[in-house]
């Protein structure tokens, strides 16, 4: 065959398969930046470091307290390896007033074989602060996998062997693995509940967590996982290595009336605070209903409206019950960003319990979401800005933007957990309902 005669065409990518989640490097950065008084060194090219900035915003870090560094790898370090540059950069950071330096490796250095663990071990004796290597190249998985990788590194490097257990105490896990863009409010709500029940928080993995808290995490009596998407491995490790039992495991997080009641009750039972839990439920439900009576949300117009839920499992699974019971809509589609066994088991249990049989898509991407929306034809979608575009032309009337995986500016954090959280969600629905009457076309007609 003569050269050049039979050219094969490179197949055109047919569909947009944009993932919802960022890479593992991002998740690891979100986790490391939750440790107060520490610094993060990205062993990466400058492009990946953008994700560190993003994670910085996600953790609402204070630039007066948290420092980020980057080795800014170029072709020289890809060709010859970047360990030397990493060593130099760590040594330059020697005098920083920090308690720990997290060294995170991106794809490039891991592909060419940089051994960040060996570099950290070699340099540790020369440094006053702790060096924690986290091998979290983006190709290792999604941002939620990155959170698991970083938590694993932290637990294995930093947590001291169990001393005395502190009675009535918990270790909170993965509050930041949550698609609610103001997840910090969810965490605050949980801390408020724990304080009322007389439960002490030994460590939070991670948000504004001092290193000393991490080191003493093993003294917690129980662990409380605040995500359905990441952190289960950390909870399992704490249980196996330090005898810390997991509470509220296997039930949806407290979003919506029933979920909140179940979650508070399970917590109260474990910590002998049933009375407090009961009064929280009574008072919370009374407050939510009284507010609804006064404010008149238009939820009734959505009665039995076919709905879709497109979110991570942390928000998405509890929303199934909220949409069904509190909003009285009919979920026809549940599309979740993640797909691990625990996510499937929990969602299936919920669907059985609610006697629902919607279309379910695990580990969805934007294309699969659009396909599923086209097939199920919901009228309302609980999702993000992405679905507002992805549902274009499919007859979806309302997209309630409850999750935002993209960076979004918010000054005030508002929770979805608990009873105020229910009102917050009602508010999202109400505003979306109102906005639908103010489309550009309608305004135009009204004026002329």
């Amino acid at each position, binding site marked *: *065959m003569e*050269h050049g005669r039979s050219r094969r065409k490179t197949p055109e990518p047919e569909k947009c398969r944009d993932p919802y989640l960022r890479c593992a490097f991002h998740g690891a950065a979100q986790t490391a930046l939750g440790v107060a008084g520490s610094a993060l060194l990205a062993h990466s090219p400058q492009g990946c470091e953008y994700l560190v900035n993003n994670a910085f915003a996600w953790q609402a870090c204070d630039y007066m307290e948290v420092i980020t560094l980057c080795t800014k790898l170029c*072709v020289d*370090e890809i060709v010859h*390896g970047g360990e030397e540059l990493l060593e130099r950069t760590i040594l330059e950071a020697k005098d920083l007033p920090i308690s720990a330096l997290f060294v995170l490796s991106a794809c490039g250095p891991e592909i060419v074989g940089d051994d960040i663990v060996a570099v950290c071990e070699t340099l540790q004796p020369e440094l006053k602060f702790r060096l924690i290597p986290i091998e979290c190249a983006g190709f290792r998985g999604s941002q939620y996998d990155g959170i698991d990788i970083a938590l694993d590194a932290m637990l294995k490097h930093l947590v001291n062997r169990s001393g005395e257990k502190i009675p009535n105490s918990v270790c909170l896990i993965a509050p930041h693995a949550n698609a609610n863009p103001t997840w910090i409010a969810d965490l605050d709500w949980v801390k408020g509940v724990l304080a009322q029940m007389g439960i002490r928080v030994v460590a939070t993995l991670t948000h504004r967590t001092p290193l000393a808290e991490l080191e003493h995490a093993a003294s917690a009596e129980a662990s409380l996982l605040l995500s359905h998407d990441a952190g289960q491995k950390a909870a399992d490790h704490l249980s196996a290595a330090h005898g810390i039992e997991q509470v509220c495991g296997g039930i949806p997080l407290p979003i919506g009336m029933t979920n909140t009641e179940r979650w508070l009750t399970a917590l109260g039972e474990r910590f002998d605070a049933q009375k407090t839990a009961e009064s929280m439920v009574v008072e919370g439900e009374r407050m939510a209903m009284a507010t609804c009576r006064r404010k008149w949300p238009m939820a009734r117009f959505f009665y039995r409206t076919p709905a879709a839920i497109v979110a991570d499992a942390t928000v998405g699974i509890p929303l199934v019950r909220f949409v069904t019971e509190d909003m009285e809509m009919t979920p026809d589609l549940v599309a979740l960003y993640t797909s691990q066994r625990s996510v499937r088991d929990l969602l299936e249990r919920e669907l059985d319990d609610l006697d629902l049989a919607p279309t379910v898509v695990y580990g969805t991407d934007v294309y699969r979401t659009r396909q599923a929306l086209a097939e199920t034809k919901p009228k309302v979608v609980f999702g993000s800005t992405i679905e507002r575009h992805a549902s274009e032309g499919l007859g979806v009337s309302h997209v309630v933007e409850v999750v935002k995986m993209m960076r979004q500016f918010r000054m005030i954090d508002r929770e979805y957990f608990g009873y105020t959280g229910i009102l917050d969600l009602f508010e999202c629905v109400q505003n979306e309902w109102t906005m639908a009457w103010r489309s550009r076309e309608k305004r135009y007609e009204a004026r002329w």
Partner: protein
Amino acid sequence: MKQIAIYGKGGIGKSTIASNLSAALNEMGQTVMQVGCDPKRDSTRILAGGRFIPAVLEEHREKLRVGKDEYAIDLDRIVYRSPGGIYLVEAGGPEPGVGCAGRGVLTALQILKDLDAFETYGIDVAIYDVLGDVVCGGFSMPIREGFAREIYLVCSGGFMSIYAANNIARAVQRLGLRGDTGLAGIVCNSNGDEALERAVIPAFAQRLGTAFVQFVPRSPVIQAGEMEGRAVVEYAPDSREAEIFRNLARAILANDTRVIPTPIAELAELETMYREHLVKK
């Protein structure tokens, strides 16, 4: 300018073939540049009188260390002229076990291109001697980026060398579909089992859809030249071996055909082909 690349299994004698070919072409009046694309940087050792010459990437690194880029490199520091007048370049690469040698090879080739090395020295034939097997995408860079247009595979009668050559043909097939590169032929560097090699390698070449270009016997003359740090056309100009390399040089100069090869997809088929010739022998 003719740009050819020599690929083949590690240790098969690519550098020996490339160096003797360069010397034969040089003897015919061609201006030749041989570019070693192997971090071991031993491709041009025979032509450099048994010495190791400085590598492009080392020089580049020095410049980067003082905040300069490749344009600050002086061509004379990376292009070495052999006593016989052949231009020699070694790409160089990282220490074993770190970094990405494939990316290194491409960087070095890009530097040569950016510095107009071929035009500066008026090169007629550039020969790329590429590291071992195609172990990752990086080592196919000379093909992918269009540095090498004609690929010659070197193999012996050893089954694994034919297996490696078939793998390289797969890379050439994939990359040839995108660009202006193709397989130009197979050279046999004998391991001594001449009867088998003379049967199986032409059959293999035919199967790939390419030419069997030259048989190079296993010879003490070639080995002695190598030990002396000299090419055969200089070390024993009147020998049968020198004539073989001149023939190879003539064939390569005359060739203007390159094909997208048709490699054997199944290992079992390759084994069957090999066994058939083992029996015939």
